[in-house]
Structure formats: C-alpha cells, structure tokens
C-alpha cells in the first residue's frame, strides 16, 4: 500500500510537471485558498459562483487527491449542494410566478419588468 501511494505521488509530480494546466502546478495551499474564497463569495446569493467553483476545481481535486487537503473536497461538495438548493428555489419561484402572475393582481404587476400586451 505504501508503495502504491508513493508511486501515485511520483506519477502526480511527473504529471504536474508535464501538464500545462496551471491548476496542476499550483501549490496545494493556493488551491485550498481558491476553493475557500469561491465558496465564501458564493454565499452572497451567487449560486453560479458555486457552480463555477465546483466545475473548475473538481477534476484537479480528484487528480491530486493525495496532495491537497481534504477540506478542498468538502468545500467543493458544499458548493455543489448549495447550487442545487438554489436552483430548486429559483425554478420553483419561476414556475409559481409564470403561472400565477395574472392572478396576483396588483402585486403581480408590481414585480414585473414588462407586461406583454393582451395577457
């Protein structure tokens, strides 16, 4: 088992020297910082940020699993979860709005940006 992990570490170091992806050569602390910052930024009503965080860093976190600290994965999975939750909220709201807009009377008009004629 120890040999295997050593081998994979060597392979990884080799790969990080060969690959052009800047994420591969970045230091583990930097990647952790990136994941953390994107996560915190995403808490400001920015689920898209969370999505970007996940997509951007997921492969790297899988490839360099041994070097990176485990909290990177935690952040990534939390971002993904948060993004899904937000998406559910948004779609629910949109569905409600689109179907019930006309029935809500003045309130429905007040929150609308534009009113299509004849509807």
């Amino acid at each position, binding site marked *: 088992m120890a040999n295997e992990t050593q081998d994979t570490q060597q392979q990884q170091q080799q790969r990080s020297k060969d690959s052009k992806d800047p994420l591969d050569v970045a230091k583990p602390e930097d990647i952790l910082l990136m994941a953390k910052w994107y996560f915190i930024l995403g808490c400001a009503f920015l689920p898209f940020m969370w999505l*970007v965080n996940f997509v951007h860093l997921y492969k790297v976190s899988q490839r360099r699993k041994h070097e990176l600290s485990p909290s990177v994965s935690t952040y990534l999975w939390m971002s993904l979860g948060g993004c899904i939750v937000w998406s559910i909220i948004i779609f629910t709201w949109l569905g409600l709005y689109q179907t019930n807009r006309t029935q809500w009377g003045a309130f429905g008009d007040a929150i609308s940006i*534009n*009113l299509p004629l004849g509807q």
Partner: protein
Amino acid sequence: MSSVPCSTCGNPALFVCSLCPSDDLASAAKYCSEACQRSHWPTHRQEHASATAATPAAASPSNQTNDYDPDCDSTALSRQRLQQRKEPPKQEEEEAAIRVLDSDTIDDLKYYLSQIYSIVKPVVACIIFAILWVKLLNPPSQYYDHAYTSPPDIYALNYGGGNVNSNVTNTVINPGRETTEQQHADLLMALKTLGSVVAATVVIFVLFYFNCMKVYSVWNLWFHYSWYLGLFTYSVSVSLLWLYLVPFDYITFFFLLWNFVAGPLILQQSYLVVMSSLMVCFIFLCIHVDNPAVPPITSWILLALLAVWDLIAVLCPYGPLRLLIEASQKHNREIPAILYSAGPTTMMASPDPSRSSQGKNQQQPNNNNTNDNDDDDEDGNGGMKLALSDWISTSSVTIALLTGLNFTIFLLVIWRKALPALPFSIAFGLLFYFSTGVCLVPFYGNEARAASSG
C-alpha cells in the same frame, strides 16, 4: 595550418563576428560565409543582447583571421575576393528601408502571426455575439406585431408595473427621435460616452505613473467593470424581454443579472468578449432603437470620435496611452494584465518587448467598437433582400475588421511602436460598408424587381 571551424557548419572559418570582443577570439563566433552567419544570428544575438543591432553585424574579414591561415596566400586572395563580394550587398541591404529580411524581424513576424490566431478567435466570437444581439433586437418591421407601441426607452429606465390603466404599457419618452432636440441629445450622449472613455484612460495613466496602482486595485477595477457589464446586460435583456413578450419579474431578473455579472469575472477572457459585444449593442441601442430606417448619425460620429481619440492618444507625444507604454518601458514595470482588460479604455496594440501573453489581452477590448453598427442599416431595405444583403454586408464587415487588425499587427512589427488599433479597422470597415452599399444594393434591387415582375 590550423583551421578553425565555423560556428554553424564546421567548415573552416574565414570571418569573425564583428560584435564579439576582439580580444577574446577563442569565444568569438566564427563563420565561413555570410549565410552561416545569418543562420547563426538568432542564437548568437543573445550574447550581444545589450546591443540594439537589428541587423546581424557585418562579418568582418579583418586582420584577426590572418592568424588562422597565415600560410595560405591563395586563401588570402580568395578571402580578398570574398571580402569584396560581400561588402556591396551588405550595404545595399542596410540601406533598404524594409528590414523585413532580417532574421529577428522574421522571428517577430512569426511570433506575431501565431498570436494573431489567438487574437482573432475572440474577436470573431465577439463579432458573432454582437451580430446576434443586434439581429435579435432588431427584426424587420413586419415581425413587429406590437409595432404600434414604442419599445422601451433605455434612458427612461421606467418600466412596467406602474401605469396599468394607461393606454401605453411602458412609459416612453420621445419615441420618434426625430426632433432636433432629440438628435442633440443623442449627440450629447455620444460625446459623453467618449468623454468617459477619455477620462478613464487619463485616470488610469495618472495612477500608473505615480505608481499608485495599489489604489486602483483589483477591487476597484472589478467594481467598475461589473458596473458596465451590468448596465449593458440590463438594457439588452430588457429589450429582449420586451421584444419577445416574455414576462419576467424583477426578483429573478436581478438575481440572474447579479450572478452573471459578479460571479465569473474571473474567467476574464470570455467575459471581455461578451461585454464588448454588449457594449456595441448598447451604443447601437441608445442611438437608434426605434426607427431602423433612421441613419444612426450619432453612431457614426461616435465611431469617428473614437478613431480620432485613439490616434491622438497613442501617436501624439503627450497622448496618455503612449505615455503609459513609455513609462512602463522606462521603469521596466509590467503593466498589469488587468489594466489591459479594463474595457473600453485600451484600444491600442503595442509591440510587446517582453513577449509575454499580455499581447493577447491588449487587443481584446478591441476593435469591436467599430463596425457592427454598420450592418444594421441594411435591415431597413425590405424583407426580401434582407437575408442576402445582410449576409454580404456582415461578412464583408467581418473581413474588413479582420483585415484591419492584421494590417495593424503587421505594421506593428515594422514600426515597433505603439499603434492605435481602431483607426485601420474603422477605415476598412467603412470602406467595405460603403462600397457594398454603393455597388451591391442597387444590384439586388434590380434583381428583386426582375424576380417579382418576371
């Protein structure tokens, strides 16, 4: 007879590089012929990096080579002949104004050519985006099923909600845009836009010059940038929504806008593209949103002003952009790449002394201001000719744009100075636009008439 090998091919060497210090012959570069010296120059010039010679130093068949072949008179004679043969062509070449044949200029050309490809890609993408927005927002009038009410006025920013009882669903100011006051207002807007661009450039330069870049830090830039992006996206989206009769609420709209803007500014490249296209569209919208047949005088004026400003800023000795470049070269400070992504303020291409990838970012904020306003005037010509003339003008404008860009880059290599990127593209675009307008459209008119009558 000791024969010293040529540094390139290994044949007996007869000449020495005249830039190499003459007291250290052992390490000097030696050549058997001028051809070998030329081919060795790209690597050898790094040893003379402090020298600003762009031409390979004349191979000097000087006294030094006598040391290597002291015994051979025949070779001395042949050396004489070689020497004579070599002098005149060298002088001719040096006198030639075009130094394109020099190997390092060729290297530069190759380098810039390879960068052209990486630059052209986002430019084309931006053009495509801009055309897309414009086409979406300005369909031919027969598709307007609610053409009798005026589209929303971006300046009024006064939408929906309020006047349910009034006959006009969206409050509008001056739909016609034909009164002179309104035209004055349009012109004023163009001037204001230009003024803001100028001011931003000057501010950036001042900050850079006094080494206050920390002040204009990433945060500020991000904020400024996202404000622009947000504004443009807002106006474009609202128009889109109105046009396609899609109801939308403020909450979701602003939420999505906030996400779109504040989030992935990290992915700067693609965002620059989108933002530039949006900005083009915004300019177009501000100026003639209602009446496609009205010629957008103000957009022409804006284009002209931008081109003039670009020329002034880059070429005149006190132009801010030129001073910026000079300051960066003098202090040997790199202009941060973020500066070059500061949207509409940087419209120039400059030779890249450090050959970093900054060159890519520099040219993006781009030429795209130029000519997507142009192809829309063709829209008013009627539905039948629309598709064909549209495509022709669009493609010719695209070609013109790219031609202008390539031309600018080519000139860059030759002149080795900071150059404004806009004027050539604008010039080419206008040329193509007017020429297609003059030559092709009447042609189509005839064809259409023939088709409909025949």
